[in-house]
């Protein structure tokens, strides 16, 4: 059996131009239906969300940055796993991926309260696709029903496909090039990178070691596996201060 992996991502905030291609690619890959009219920023479903933040200064000093926030795949004391009364959330020891089982979820939403990153979403409505669009659904990902919570799982369908391809070649170890989440693949500026953090030769593992690298709310000790980086001081400060005084937090 191969050594356990610790899949993670590195995100270069200085490269992100806020285009939202990652959000779109994610929705298409993971069968997330278009939001109904009644949806707002907390009731809609987006496994990855690009937040817009600024340095709170007036023109001409004002600067803006875009921060894609997805499930941070907490590696230590994963908050959502702890609070789930249904054992509907688990951490795969093989991959380090925090998995959500919608079929087990009873919809109590404790995990959404526990998640420090607002990375979990509740299905307030049954999924509905405009006529014809259901033909584009991804058969590798089961659609979720009303009343359950869902979140990013690093495109698990792609992990399955990569494993299957390896099995066809008689191997247990997948080729790293075969497993790339949809958001990483779609990013036009190359701001997102994905790989095994436990392998020091991967780009993500090296990105995580850079001096300008940081993680969101690092001080609470959940050891997230999404490593952001920015050369701008004010961007790095925002990551450790969840709600700047007098401002509406990180809301875009």
């Amino acid at each position, binding site marked *: 059996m191969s050594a356990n992996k610790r899949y993670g991502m590195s995100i270069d905030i200085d490269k992100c131009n806020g285009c939202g291609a990652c959000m779109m690619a994610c929705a298409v890959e993971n069968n997330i239906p278009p939001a109904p009219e009644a949806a707002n920023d907390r009731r809609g479903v987006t496994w990855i969300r690009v937040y817009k933040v600024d340095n709170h200064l007036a023109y001409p000093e004002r600067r803006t940055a875009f921060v894609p926030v997805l499930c941070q795949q907490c590696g230590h004391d994963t908050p959502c796993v702890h609070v789930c009364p249904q054992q509907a959330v688990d951490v795969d020891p093989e991959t380090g991926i925090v998995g959500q089982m919608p079929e087990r979820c009873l919809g109590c939403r404790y995990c959404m309260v526990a998640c420090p990153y607002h990375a979990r979403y509740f299905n307030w409505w049954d999924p509905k696709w405009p006529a014809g669009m259901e033909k584009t659904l991804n058969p590798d990902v089961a659609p979720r029903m009303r009343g359950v919570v869902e979140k990013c799982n690093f495109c698990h369908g792609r992990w399955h496909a990569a494993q*299957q391809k390896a*099995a*066809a070649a008689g191997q247990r170890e997948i080729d790293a090039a075969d497993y790339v989440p949809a958001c990483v693949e779609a990013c036009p500026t190359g701001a997102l990178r994905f790989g095994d953090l436990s392998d020091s030769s991967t780009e993500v593992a090296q990105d995580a070691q850079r001096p300008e690298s940081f993680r969101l709310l690092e001080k609470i000790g959940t050891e997230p596996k999404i490593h952001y980086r920015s050369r701008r001081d004010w961007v790095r400060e925002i990551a450790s201060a969840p709600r700047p005084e007098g401002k509406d937090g990180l809301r875009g």
Partner: protein
Amino acid sequence: MIGGKIAFASGMLLALAGGWLAFPRILYQTRQQPVNFSHKVHAEKAGAKCEDCHSFRDDGTYAGIPTLDKCSGCHTAAMGTTAEEKNFIDQYVTPNREPQWLSYAQQPENVYFSHIAHVKLGHVKCEQCHGNEGGTGALRPYQQDPISGYSRDIWGRPVAPVGLRNEGGMKMDDCVNCHRRQGLEYSCLGCHK
């Protein structure tokens, strides 16, 4: 006194017969396969191995039940004299119409199962999960839960566990038991999607 015992015993038998024989018939809808296919005849005359017809694609995905073109390869004209074969050719081969086979093993849409990982890496024999399907002379009736639409093979505990295999099978418990025995149980998303 004796009469009482007889009455009790016959009542008991009636209740058990009702529970074991009649209740499953009410609970599950029985449907017949479109063609009376014999795995045994085909195994003897056409191909010796399961994968001769139930093949893998190049990318490792499993093709499942063969499509009509596989059948047409031999059955453009009758090879034998049976009425079933003639019927199959008239109904499906000549009009080029796919038979709507009912898949006993079709899993719900949230299940991920890789045949090639089990067969090639795990060296699991087809029979371990599917039973000795390849040796049967006729296709058994397909039983379906009318509410969920799932095949009985993958869902529902047997009402009378008589004559059923203890090992193998295709319910989630069967998967979990085998994985647990081998220490290959990691997370829900290993088998769910």
